[in-house]
């Protein structure tokens, strides 16, 4: 790697000052499993690297009184994967976290880093989008934007000069909401060729009142399949409806050819994985009804 100046602020205030001072010359180091890889490959060569290692107050999972949860950006993916509290309420998050890399990677990688890296294949993004999660951004001021709007393009996220991602806020779910994430890759440890998450709210009789479907790795950013969602909302699901939603999702996807997969493969997989996540949501709903 190119050499650089290493900075390690001891507080959020100090961090923000440095980010604002060095602007485009600085990169934030969380777990390092994306940043250091890119620096070693020569794709990035920042003059300044600011470490979050000693910045307190960024590592937590806090259940909220209203039923939601707040996750500090520096929470390791391993801890997200193993969190009992997340598994009970938002199982798609531990599921997605467990798909990232290997245990060694997950002990260092962070949920904030997974998003800020800006990869359209980020495994945590589709489930967070489906859960309606908000990104809490702090700089000279604080603001919140939906995770859906956090991604701007490949490697680009909605952080301005002097800003960093501090926390993820996941709102309480409507009752009988079920969600999951599935991923297709070339081997057991891999970046997603395609990732699909869904969250579906069911009322009596298997009637779906709300559906969110988010696709990873098939567009410049994680992509909500809005037209597909419409086809599945406000009705009781049959096999035909599930198939129609899946087909529409694959039409909405905008994949490219790259070393991991072709357009043909990705479109096919979007349809297949969408169908599978929908079926899984339905099965979760049925299981709950039976208990």
């Amino acid at each position: 790697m190119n050499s650089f100046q290493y900075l390690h602020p001891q507080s959020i205030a100090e961090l923000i000052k440095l980010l604002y001072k060095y602007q485009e010359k600085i990169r934030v180091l969380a777990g390092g499993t994306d940043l250091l890889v890119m620096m070693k490959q020569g794709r990035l060569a920042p003059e300044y690297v600011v470490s979050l290692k000693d910045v307190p107050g960024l590592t937590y999972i806090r259940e909220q009184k209203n039923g939601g949860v707040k996750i500090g950006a520096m929470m390791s993916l391993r801890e997200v994967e193993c969190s009992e509290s997340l598994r009970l309420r938002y199982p798609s998050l531990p599921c997605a976290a467990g798909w990232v890399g290997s245990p060694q990677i997950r002990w260092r990688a962070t949920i904030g880093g997974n998003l800020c890296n800006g990869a359209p294949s980020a495994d945590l993004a589709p489930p967070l989008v489906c859960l309606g999660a908000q990104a809490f951004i702090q700089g000279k001021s604080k603001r919140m934007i939906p995770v859906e709007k956090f991604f701007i393009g490949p490697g680009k996220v909605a952080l301005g000069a002097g800003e960093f991602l501090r926390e993820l806020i996941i709102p309480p779910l409507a009752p009988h909401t079920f969600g999951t994430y599935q991923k297709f890759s070339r081997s057991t440890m891999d970046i997603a060729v395609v990732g699909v998450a869904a969250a579906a709210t069911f009322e009596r009789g298997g009637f779906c009142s709300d559906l969110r479907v988010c696709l990873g790795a098939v567009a410049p950013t994680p992509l909500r399949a809005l037209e597909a969602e419409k086809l599945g909302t406000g009705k009781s699901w049959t096999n035909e409806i599930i198939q129609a939603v899946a087909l529409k999702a694959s039409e909405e996807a905008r994949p490219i050819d790259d070393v991991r997969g072709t357009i043909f493969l990705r479109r096919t997989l979007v349809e297949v994985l969408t169908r599978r996540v929908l079926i899984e949501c339905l099965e979760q709903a049925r299981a709950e009804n039976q208990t």
Partner: protein
Amino acid sequence: MPGTSSRRKSNVKESLAHTIRLKVNGDLHELTVKPHHTLLDVLRDQLELTGTKEGCGLGECGACTVHMDGKPVNSCLVLALEADGSEIVTIEGLAKAGKLHPVQRAFVEKGAIQCGFCTPGMVMASIGLLAEKPNPTREEIKQALIGNLCRCTGYKKIIEAVSEAASSGGARDDE
């Protein structure tokens, strides 16, 4: 420049040297490092603990796995400066007074070692698994080791060794 793991100096300022303090295998060290040095560099080059290997430099192969504050990590993706204040255990820190750790013994007895280059990383990752799950299933062992590549053994005997170590109480270090 195709194919080189670029470690070029920037043509901006000379990068500053920092001092770090860390414990490695129980010994406290005070070292001078540059920002771009990784924990792996420090272990192998400065401390001459060459048991931890570099197989890829990008966190894909796991040959560089060490325990950092009790967790298995790829030391090639940890800056030395990030390890300041940490406790590190490498493969050299396992055997106590000439007695092998149960996982090490199981690897030897089960024929899980061929060229041996992946072995230190495999052992460290396996111990990391057993610390969390003292009685893992075969599938759990397989999943725990996906970040450790082996080109020689086909993994079968490695998985058997970890299973064997678990059933003989390998989660604990026996003194």
